[in-house]
């Protein structure tokens, strides 16, 4: 067995354990350095994953698949983790504490996502999913003295448990009907034709279980409450990493495993995508809290990404990969601003963002870039991303593309409302908002990436194209 295929995961596990151990050894006041250590470690692992880009293969007889597709997803998780860590340093020091636990568990959550992206059978998939979920439960409730954080933690535990149960039920139904947990083998069995209709019930439960993780309507109800209550950087990680990992699983299951019964689920996913886009965007309109607004916007974004799943084609997979990657920068950037503003003003209300452009021009610019990118305004990256997503369904489901476009326009309304407040309104308290250097670094990275990919999407499109092809080769 070629253990070198798992280099990245092994390194991540070592990093996570090392952080926990270090937390016990280093004195209290030195723990701030752990953030930088995490960033360096994750950056090293990211470099490693880029170096092992072309590795292909599987372990344990197909339980664990390594291909460019999974490696690209791992790079998304690592990028998100790096940015979140950078952006959360000051926030963690001042608002949370428990640096070692925070960073260590964050790394474990990343490890869980990696396992999900590489899962070749149901057992691995579930293992990764639970590793990630449990890590997130801890992280969400980490601000133990804050009522909202605890409430969010409780809600997340219960509803995540619920969704896990549903997912497991679905998995066991599929296992019972096919006699195997291996996704590739299931695909072969299903492509031979006849299958018992109970399989459909299994699909429904799988959609519900995974729909919870990607916060697709109507399984999204937890998202706004948890997003609001969780420590803000964790919210960013929930919205990017967790969502991307779940999409990795959705694609693996549906485009690979259930491609034989594509006709059965494509319309359902299309309708889910439509409903998610509509509800996410509409409910975002009346929000007055920036975290809730971004939470609903994140629901809507899940709808956009689902559009790429509908066709189960290489183009769709490519679009999902592309969007998941650029979405990291916009989301982490926006939440970093929110965390930093909260750290200094103690408020998440949109009205307290008045005059942010004067108090902290970089924060306001970051927020502007992030929101416009999410709205899909050229020349920012979100435009290219949405273009690729909607282009995949223009043939089969033109109405879905239309809904996507219309809802993107609706989203401009509530995004620009925030921009107006930041740029037009005079601040009540004109004192400047300071940025620590790691936070400023996060913002600069996120802004530059959003702008450069928007202007010149070619290279990223090529990479995602390769990754999407590797996915279909293995099938």
């Amino acid at each position, binding site marked *: 067995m070629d253990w070198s295929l798992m280099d990245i995961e092994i390194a991540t596990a070592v990093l996570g354990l090392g952080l926990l151990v270090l937390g016990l050894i280093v004195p209290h006041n030195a723990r701030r350095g752990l953030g930088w250590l995490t960033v360096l470690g994750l950056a090293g692992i990211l470099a490693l994953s880029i170096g092992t880009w072309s590795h292909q293969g599987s372990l344990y007889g197909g339980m664990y698949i390594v291909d460019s597709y999974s490696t690209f997803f791992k790079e998304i998780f690592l990028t998100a983790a790096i940015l979140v860590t950078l952006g959360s340093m000051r926030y963690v020091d001042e608002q949370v504490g428990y640096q070692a636990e925070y960073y260590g568990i964050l790394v474990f959550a990343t490890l869980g996502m990696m396992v999900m992206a590489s899962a070749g059978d149901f057992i691995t998939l579930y293992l990764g999913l639970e590793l990630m979920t449990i890590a997130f439960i801890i992280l969400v409730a980490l601000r133990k003295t804050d009522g909202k954080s605890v409430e969010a933690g*409780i*809600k997340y535990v*219960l*509803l995540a448990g*619920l*969704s896990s149960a*549903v997912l497991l039920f679905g998995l066991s139904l599929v296992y019972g009907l096919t006699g195997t947990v291996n996704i590739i083998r299931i695909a072969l069995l299903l492509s031979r034709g006849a299958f*018992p*209709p*109970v399989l*459909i*019930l299994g*699909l*429904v*439960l799988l*959609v*519900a279980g995974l*729909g*919870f993780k990607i916060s697709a*309507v*109507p*399984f999204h*109800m*937890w998202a*706004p*409450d948890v997003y609001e209550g969780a420590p803000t950087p964790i919210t960013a990680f929930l919205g990017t990493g967790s969502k991307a990992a779940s999409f990795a699983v959705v694609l693996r299951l549906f485009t690979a495993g259930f491609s034989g*019964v594509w*006709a*059965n*689920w494509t*319309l*359902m996913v299309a*309708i*889910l995508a439509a409903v998610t886009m509509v*509800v996410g965007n*509409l*409910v*975002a*309109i*009346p929000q007055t809290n920036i975290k809730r607004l971004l939470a609903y916007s994140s629901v809507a974004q899940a709808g956009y990404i689902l559009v790429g799943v509908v066709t189960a084609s290489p183009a769709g997979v490519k679009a999902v990969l592309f969007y998941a990657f650029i979405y990291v920068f916009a989301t982490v950037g926006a939440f970093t601003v929110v965390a930093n503003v909260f750290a200094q003003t103690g408020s998440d209300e949109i009205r307290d963002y008045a005059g942010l452009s*004067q108090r902290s*021009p*970089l924060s306001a*610019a970051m927020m502007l870039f992030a929101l416009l990118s999410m709205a899909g305004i050229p020349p920012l990256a979100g435009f290219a991303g949405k273009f690729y997503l909607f*282009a995949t369904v223009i043939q089969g489901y033109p109405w879905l593309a239309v809904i996507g476009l219309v809802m993107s326009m*609706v989203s401009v*309304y509530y995004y620009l409302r925030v921009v107006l407040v930041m740029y037009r309104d005079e601040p009540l308290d004109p004192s400047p908002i300071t940025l620590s250097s790691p936070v400023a670094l996060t913002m600069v990275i996120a802004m530059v990436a959003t702008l450069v990919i928007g202007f*010149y999407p*070619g290279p990223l*499109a090529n990479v995602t194209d390769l990754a999407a092809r590797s996915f279909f080769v293995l099938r």
Partner: protein
Amino acid sequence: MYHAWLVPLLPALSFAVISLLTKQWKWLSATISIGAMVSGFIIAAFIAVGVLQHPGLINHPLVYSLRWLSMPGFKVDAGILLDPLSAMMLFMVTLVASLIQIYSLGYMRGEKGFSVFFAYMSLFGASMLLLVAASNLLELFVAWEGVGVCSYMLIGFYNHKISAREAAKKAFVTTRIGDTGLLLGLLSLQLIFGTLNIADLAQKIPQFQNIPLLITVAVLFFLGPVGKSGQFPLHVWLPDAMEGPTPVSALIHAATMVVAGVYLVGRMLFMFASVPPVMELVAWVGGFTAIFAASIAITQREIKRILAYSTISQIGYMMLGLGVGSLSAGFFHLWTHAFFKALMFLGAGSVLIGLHHKADVWEMGGLIKKMPITAVTFVVGGLAISGIPPFAGFWSKGDILDATLASGHTVLFVIGSFTAFLTAFYIWRMIFLCFFGKENPENHPQESPLVMTIPLMILALFSTVAGLIGTPWWDVWGRYIHFGTYVPPVANWPLMIGDTLLGALGIYAAYLFYCKDREKTKALAARQWFGGRLYDVLYHKYYLDELYMWFNHSMVDGVARLMYLFDIYVVDGIVNGVGAFTVAAGEGLRVFQTGRLQNYALVFFLGVLAVGVLLAFTGPHATLFLGGVR
């Protein structure tokens, strides 16, 4: 030379940095902007040297590009195209822009929105430089629109003034007419040839056989330059554009942006040259605009307006040069004109600052005593534009007239020559009224600071010597920038002497009218005889603005009113309805978000149920599912 992409990028970055970060710090913003432009100039200078060392680039431009957009059946590359033409433009634009930005330090001192001004100037620089370096027409079009937007923002820079806002709107709308034609032309080219890469088109178009189709495309295409370069009949926006700050007028509406149209025609000359009727059109539009605008300039009173009409007229010359097939002559005039026109605009700005924005030339006089540097440099510009040797304009204007005559366009040659006389006349009318004669006791002029006069002196130097690289005896210019095969020039003595005499005659006539005896002239203009009528017509710019306004009021407004009714009752109804519905729907859906865990779980399971039912009814096996297990 491979670093040419940096030239547009630097000002673009400067725009981003200023507008996002350093807006509060005025001098930092200005330094960033100027620093970016000067660095661009240094790179452009190296590029120019590189191009001079590689004569192979004349026929085989250096193109490097990236795949910008790609989808099945449509690919767009974006990149840099380097040949002597674009290298010259890069050099000229960065040089003039650098000088003008430095000058603006003095001119804009104390103005509100100082940083924003420099941010816009940077953005303009970036767009203009991308325009001249673009290797693909779509890329060029993006930059083309970019300069349009910057021009709009800068004309309306004093947005507290109604006239500035109106002028900005007018400029935008008028050029839009041309841009629409250009866009249609671009789309046709893409449809016919399947590419917008300039180098590919240069291969394909000359072999294209369907001449009538190509004529249509070329005419549509030409509309863009007509709008952007202020050619008749879309010239009306340019004089009004003088509402912007003077450095803007100098940079955008004299030296660089307005010649973008000339540049585009020159760039695509291989297309125009394959359809001779369109070439005739270009030549005639140019020639007519030249004399038309010059005749208006004679009667104008505001210093910047005179210069604006002069710009229109000179761009007409350039178009004339291109239209008779001489890329070399047209662009030579573009090159020299950039320097002396920027010089005169900046000089006018200096005068305006000295006189606290009093713009009427009749109220000036004798400024040479108090503002010697401004006056002397202005006179250098005046000599250059009037075609007095050895100043720059003499060589370039002579080339155009020479080319016109050589191509057999006798009428256009006469028009061009007469325009040369008119040019010298109206420019020197302005110079005599402003700088010579009796001082106006109401004025208390003061020479401008060095930060403004040094750019003037540098530009005066260029206005003097820039033409010497294209003389019949030492024709570096023609060897590098030409279309088709290179023909070494021969000195055409009668023409050269004739040009000089025409210029001198114009200056002398202006001296007679406006320096020796200006009171008599004033009276002459006011008298109600035929000449007075003519004067009125000229002063009102042939009533074209009035005609356009009448058309606008009677036709466009009429249709607009109908549309408006439709708009408020139908469209607005729908839009507002949708908006209200959307907000209400958002509020309504929000009700479900109770915060209670039990409700969330309930919705979750209802969702499972709904999805189950959905799947059951949508899948091909729906009946099977409803029928239970087989």
